């Protein structure tokens, strides 16, 4: 899949960070949607399911891990990459347990982020193909 076709949702309460990140991704041919809290993220997913959601763990209102849990219940195909500013693996591991595809620590390396998005989309595609094959059988 071409990067232009990737449906990416960025969720973080740090406006400066997330909008700049979105701009950088756009420069690389990826057109993400940006929301700034957990509630908006749930609404955005309900409106249009993204391939990958980049989700900050620590946000005001609904926390990142709760958003993840709810998304995985309603939209299990959405691949979630968790962002943590703690410098700790604890939240990342907890997120993986809840179904996150991977986690990354701030500050990000954008190339690594894009690699992980690619892997997530590839994983999602393969999983969907496998599911279809199973249904066909």
């Amino acid at each position, binding site marked *: 899949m071409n990067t232009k076709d990737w449906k990416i949702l960025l969720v973080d309460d*740090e406006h*400066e*960070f997330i909008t*700049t*990140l979105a*701009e*950088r991704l756009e*420069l*690389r041919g990826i057109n993400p949607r940006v929301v700034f809290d957990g509630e908006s993220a749930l609404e955005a997913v309900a409106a249009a399911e993204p391939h990958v959601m980049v989700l900050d763990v*620590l946000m005001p209102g609904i926390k990142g891990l709760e958003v993840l849990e709810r998304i995985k219940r309603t939209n299990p195909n959405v691949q979630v990459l968790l962002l943590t*500013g*703690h*410098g*700790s*693996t604890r939240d990342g591991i907890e997120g993986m347990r809840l179904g996150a595809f991977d986690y990354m*620590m*701030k*500050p*990000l390396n*954008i190339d690594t982020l894009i690699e992980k998005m690619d892997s997530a989309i590839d994983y999602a595609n393969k999983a969907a193909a496998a599911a279809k094959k199973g249904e066909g059988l």
Partner: protein
Amino acid sequence: MFKLTKLLGHPLHELQSDVDEAVSPERYTLLRRKIIALMMAACLIPLSVMAVLNYYEHQNAMAREIQNPLRVLVNKTKNSFELFLTERSSTVSLIASAYTYQELNDEQKLARIFSVMKREFDGFVDLGLIDEHGTQVNYVGPYSLRGKNYADQRWFQEVRLKGKYVSDVFMGFRKFPHVIVAVQHMTEDGRTWILRATLDTRQFERIIASMSLEPDADAFLVNTQGLMQTSSNNYGKVLEKLTFPLPPQTYEPAVLTMIDPLGREVFLSYSYFPEADFVLMAVKPRSSVLKTWYTVRGDLLFIFVAGVAVVLFAAMRVTDALIQRMKESEERRELALRQVEHSQKLSSIGRLAAGVAHEINNPLAIINEKAGLMKDIIAMQGEFPAREKILAQVESVLRTVERCRGITHRMLGFARRMDVSIEELDLGEIVTECAGFLSNEAMHRKVEVRLDIDPLLPRINSDRSQLQQVFLNLFNNALAAVSDGGHIEATARPISGEEGEGVEIVVADNGCGMSDETLKHIFEPFFTTKKGKGTGLGLSITYGIIKRLGGEIAVESAQGVGTTLTITLPKGQREAMA
């Protein structure tokens, strides 16, 4: 970093000093004294009471055992005296009754009677017949006393009054101590006459000698005026005044204790004679009769003193052991409390570090993205003036962000024992840096720290913060082991073997060293030789870190020579790293 050193290496020493302050030696000294005093009192008061009671009971028993025989002896001797005097006076009475005045006035007949008396009874010296006027009309004996008149003498008055009389010892006409037995007889026609016999006082001495007294004992007769009737070893000669007052009158033998004129404590046994003017006395020094008691008392005293010494020794040993146990227990409790407190502090530091990391990481992320965007934009632009210069500045910002990221992660690494974070690093730099952390203390104690880092030492892939902890721990241990003025040497060199390339770091000291027994347990958790000053976790953690980093650690030590710790680390990662 000095604070960091303290956090890693010194806090347990600090905790111990706090514990030492809390477990004050004065408190234990006071407690020790109290326990010993209590134990001594509990043991010695009954022992002392028993000893005192035993002393008085034994003394009383001994006194009774001594007094009774003495009383019996005096009674027996008094009976002997009374028998002697009664026999003599009865003999004289019999003769006075059996013979008439005329017969007794016959010189030959009186001589014959006297010779029979002397043969049958010891002690008669002479025999005389005295008329009612007191004139001795007939006399048989060794003195020339015929014709002597006794009308003025006391005994004559006494016998006229009582009919029979036994005198006490007196000098009389013969100027020699003697005793007389006189009997008055009345004829049918109303005339009275007196038959008088003289007794030898040596018989008294013989009776007293038959008492078989010890050399320091004494027995004698006195009259009721206190004049000696027989000689005494210590209290006067015959007819001298007794040197102490007469005891209260009693006809039954009595015993009393007194201090005699010689200053001795004595038992005085005595008895008054009902029929004669005599008092029989026997004196025994208390010291001689209680000699056996004094021996027993010496033995008892020795047993008492030995018992006290044993009780004291046992009380001190038991108390010392008890106090030691209490002290150790209290130290452990205090140390545990301090460790909990320390853990709580570390936990607080960890939470603080996590908060700081989060607060810094978010702005860093923004800087990172902004700089990244700038770099992206510049990259998309064509050549323009100062392009390279601006790009270089942006790169610099990105490197700085990466550096800050490393710092926040290392903060968490120290405080929260984060995951192993592998990076390519210069081990020589870490060793030098860690040795530098201790330079202040080493300089203060004049400990020489020598570093020998091979310039060809390869860079290795390992965890900087974990290795910092390892080398800080090793240097701290070495510094604790060496005396002031000692030396610590650290060498780092490249190695290569079957498992590939790596580095070897040797930390050697000339400190007190360790025994073989200690070496067997040196890497076990909670094993320590610092007697309460360490947790016994330092080398255990070091061992765990080195193993996690794929390395090996070995130790050699000799008591009094020093200790050498050798660490080998792989140049790259091994399976253990995964």
